[in-house]
């Protein structure tokens, strides 16, 4: 048996890598810059003392660009070993040294084939004296020749624009790209065209600036005035950075765009995952030395180290907020006011933060919107609803009864309220059982209750087909004749009813099992208010027929008041009872006029 090698269509592979690995043709500038900077680092390691620089020159008449570095250069052997072999890199051999370089995949030059049909590279190695020219083509062929003229030590790459890509070789575009990727690189970078020369990178990166400088930087580069700048630091990930607290509220759904630099070169300005998901109220700018990028170098490999670093950075933000509560509580209050949604999400997960901010947060209560510190100072007993719907059903009545009910129906609010006893020992929090709310109303005296039993029994009998049970109590406000409460499963049961009726025999029996064996029938409650004069009159009336119509109208009116959906039968009931009373009223009016 003979071992064979796979045959690879080189042109296809180059096309694949160069056109599909990268999301933006402009990355060729990044790849060239990176090779240049790495070459300079390599020469520095040889012990050479000299003025380091990278120069990009444009030749607009021929749509050509050159990028020259005065780094270590390449020998003939190195060219054959690395340039002409995809997937190898000069930076692999020495593991310790690899840390100092930005690139590591040996595919960087391929990015140039996106914009150019030929790469010409002129180089002279700092180690041996020959000047060499290498020409590579996207079909996978290349040629090397020795030059007679002596080139300076270092490497120059020449690219000529492919049709349609000329604008990537124009001054403004190149200047933008160089600034984007290279503005914080320590090696001086120059862009020249004709006689002009411009230094690209003179500014200090924001992570090297003090707080005022960092705030100033973002105001001038991103045109917003952050509320605060939080220094980020992770020792294990070699990360330094700044998290800017945004001056406006952001949605949880928005894609985060943090700017991340790898060894001072921009890796991505739309990295979402480098900070914890709850930190969506900040924009981060940071630089890392040790996280490993993916092959396209537009994201990091999400390994254990990555998540450790992310947690460490998250902790920086948290500790900063904790510090603020002592140094600048006013600022913290403003931050909470704007970013409460994000901070609520954080507080649910984190005890320390919860304790810090819970009192500043606002909640919807039966007494209107209130901050938790106000709630705690006046109400030792707190009820919390599990849904918005439940809250709406009883908010008004609860207030009249002097009950402090907090709406737990918004995201996180329920958990936040439930955790209150962990920060305040005097508070008692219980979950409101919406069906038992009537038990909190004033009971009627024994005799009165007895006298009203026939009325209640009549109501029970009438409303049983709507799965509704009745009671009579005394409660405020008097203008509400009856309160209808139901828990969240009532719609589910109505759906189950429909399904059981519609389904084929096999599935009807299945639905029946689900509703009977897994769920308790939810009975709704209708509590008549004996404080209401019309209820008192209806109960006192001896006319059973009239009482019936009154009960039906009380019921449907309570449904309407509570925003509950009515089925066809309930609508019919409302119509009939309304018409009944209209008719009665009209009869009386006409009779009286006679």
């Amino acid at each position, binding site marked *: 048996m003979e071992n064979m090698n796979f045959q690879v269509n080189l042109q296809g592979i180059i096309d694949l890598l160069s056109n599909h690995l990268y999301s933006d043709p402009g990355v060729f500038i990044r790849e060239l810059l990176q090779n240049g900077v790495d070459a300079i680092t390599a020469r520095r390691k040889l012990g050479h003392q000299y003025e380091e620089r990278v120069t990009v020159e444009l030749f607009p008449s021929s749509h050509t660009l050159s990028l020259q570095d005065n780094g270590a250069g390449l020998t003939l052997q190195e060219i054959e070993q690395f340039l002409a072999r995809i997937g190898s890199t000069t930076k692999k051999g020495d593991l310790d040294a690899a840390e100092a370089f930005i690139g590591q995949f040996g595919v960087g030059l391929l990015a140039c084939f996106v914009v150019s049909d030929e790469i010409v590279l002129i180089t002279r190695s700092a180690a041996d004296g020959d000047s060499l020219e290498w020409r590579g083509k996207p079909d996978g062929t290349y040629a090397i020749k020795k030059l007679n003229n002596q080139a300076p030590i270092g490497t120059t790459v020449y690219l000529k624009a492919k049709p349609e890509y000329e604008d990537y070789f124009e001054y403004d575009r190149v200047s933008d790209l160089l600034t984007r990727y290279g503005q914080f690189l320590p090696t001086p970078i120059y862009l020249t065209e004709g006689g002009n020369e411009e230094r690209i990178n003179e500014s200090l990166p924001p992570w090297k600036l003090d707080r005022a400088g960092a705030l100033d930087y973002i105001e001038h580069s991103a045109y917003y005035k952050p509320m605060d700048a939080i220094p980020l630091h992770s020792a294990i990930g070699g990360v330094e950075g700044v998290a800017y607290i945004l001056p406006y509220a952001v949605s*949880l*759904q928005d894609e985060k765009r943090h700017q991340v630099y790898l060894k001072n070169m921009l890796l991505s300005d739309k990295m979402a995952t480098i900070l914890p998901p709850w930190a969506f109220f900040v924009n981060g700018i940071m630089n890392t030395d040790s996280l490993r990028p993916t092959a396209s170098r537009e994201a990091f490999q999400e390994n*254990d180290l990555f*998540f450790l670093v992310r947690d460490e950075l998250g902790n920086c933000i948290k500790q900063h907020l904790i510090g603020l509560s002592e140094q600048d509580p006013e600022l913290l209050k403003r931050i909470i006011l704007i970013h409460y949604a994000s901070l609520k999400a954080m507080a649910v997960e984190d005890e320390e933060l919860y304790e810090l901010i819970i009192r500043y947060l606002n909640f919807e209560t039966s007494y209107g919107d209130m901050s938790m510190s106000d709630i705690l100072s006046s109400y030792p007993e707190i009820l919390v609803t*599990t*849904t918005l*719907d439940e809250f709406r059903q009883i908010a008004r009545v609860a207030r009249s009864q002097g009950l402090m009910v907090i709406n737990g*129906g918004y*995201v996180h609010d329920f958990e936040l309220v439930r955790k209150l006893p962990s920060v305040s020992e005097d508070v008692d929090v219980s979950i409101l059982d919406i069906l038992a709310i009537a038990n909190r109303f004033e009971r009627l005296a024994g005799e009165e209750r007895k006298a009203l039993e026939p009325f209640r029994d009549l109501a029970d009998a009438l409303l049983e087909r709507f799965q509704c049970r009745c009671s009579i109590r005394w409660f405020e406000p008097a203008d509400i004749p009856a309160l209808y409460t139901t828990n*969240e499963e009532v*719609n*589910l049961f*109505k*759906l*189950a009813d*429909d*399904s*059981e009726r*519609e*389904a*084929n025999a*096999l*599935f*009807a*029996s*299945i*639905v029946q*099992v*689900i*509703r009977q*064996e*897994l*769920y308790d029938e939810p009975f709704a409650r209708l509590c008549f208010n004996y404080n209401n004069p019309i209820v008192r009159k209806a109960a006192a009336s001896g006319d059973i027929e009239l009482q019936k119509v009154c009960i039906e109208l009380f019921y449907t009116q309570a449904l309407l008041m509570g925003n509950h*959906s009515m*089925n*066809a039968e309930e609508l019919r009931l409302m119509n009939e009872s309304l018409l009944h009373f209209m008719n009665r009223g009209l009869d009386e009016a006409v009779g009286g006029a006679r």
Partner: protein
Amino acid sequence: MKQRYYGLRREFWSMPDGKRKLVVLEEAIRIADQYMTESDAYDARMDYSSATLECGCPERLFISFSWCLAKFENNPGVYSSFSIMWHYKWVLNQIWRLPQFSLEQIEAVFADFERKCKQYGYTLRAYYQQKVNFLLSQGHLEAAAAYHKLWKETPRDSLSDCLACEQNLFGEYYFRINHLKRGMQTIKPILDGRMSCRSVPQTTYSNMIVPLLKLGEFDRAIDIAKKAFRSIEGPSYLPEYGVFMEFFTVTDMPKAVKLYERTIQLGLESKMPWDRFQYLLSVRLFLQQWSKVKRRKKLAESEQVTLAWLDEEIGTLAQAFNDRNGNDYMHRFIAEKEQNISRLVKKISGG
């Protein structure tokens, strides 16, 4: 009302998975039933069906699905056969999780699905796949092996699970019948990153933890558990939370406690007997280890969740499944699991 309907739908999309999300959609469906067209009501129910699985209330799937199936059967030209058959697959994957359904009922549903596969031009691959699951849950390994063979031999089609999911399930099959090495081999393409989808590799990770422990590959198990634990979130992973709780019980007690506190509410609320059984069984293994040492900390829900209560719950559930299945598989299942854990505890505390 239309406005309220669309408002509810909007709210639904922005809510985190959970029971409250379903409550919102239930109201929307009621509105669609009364004020909109039948196909609006149908679409709303189809969305609801998939939400029931994500929101940890899979038993509600039967309610919406039954209605949709009936409408589809009455009017097969109006609704997509593919969508309803895809949902039908979910039903097959849930129905045996309730001991309240008799074997006859379950077989009848399987038979109906099989008939519909033929009627609407799908191969029986999905049918065989579900059959394997059902048989394994009753401990019928030989019958499962026969269907496993049929499953692999039947050509794939659009009703089959995606390649990554299927590969994952093939692996799970070997784990379930205790062919651990074979299972590891099967999921290798997934671990190498060559196959993935929305739920793979997360589910693969949690599937392989117990097998890894059984194989004695502790370091690898710890490594995988870390990865997996980060990727599962939400109420649909109850049995998986159980797996991790067991795992942390033997490797990292404080983490087990944290996971318990985070998930116990979900477990208590879960109505699906099979999922509830799996989770509570893990809780019991955790609590047994936890109570071996005197502790000052009081666990959440400690009044309800006691060892005695767990014994009772687990016993009742296991008995219900055994009665339905007509064998004692659930008791064997519990015994094996307990044996496994105590062996591990010995090994880890001894080594």
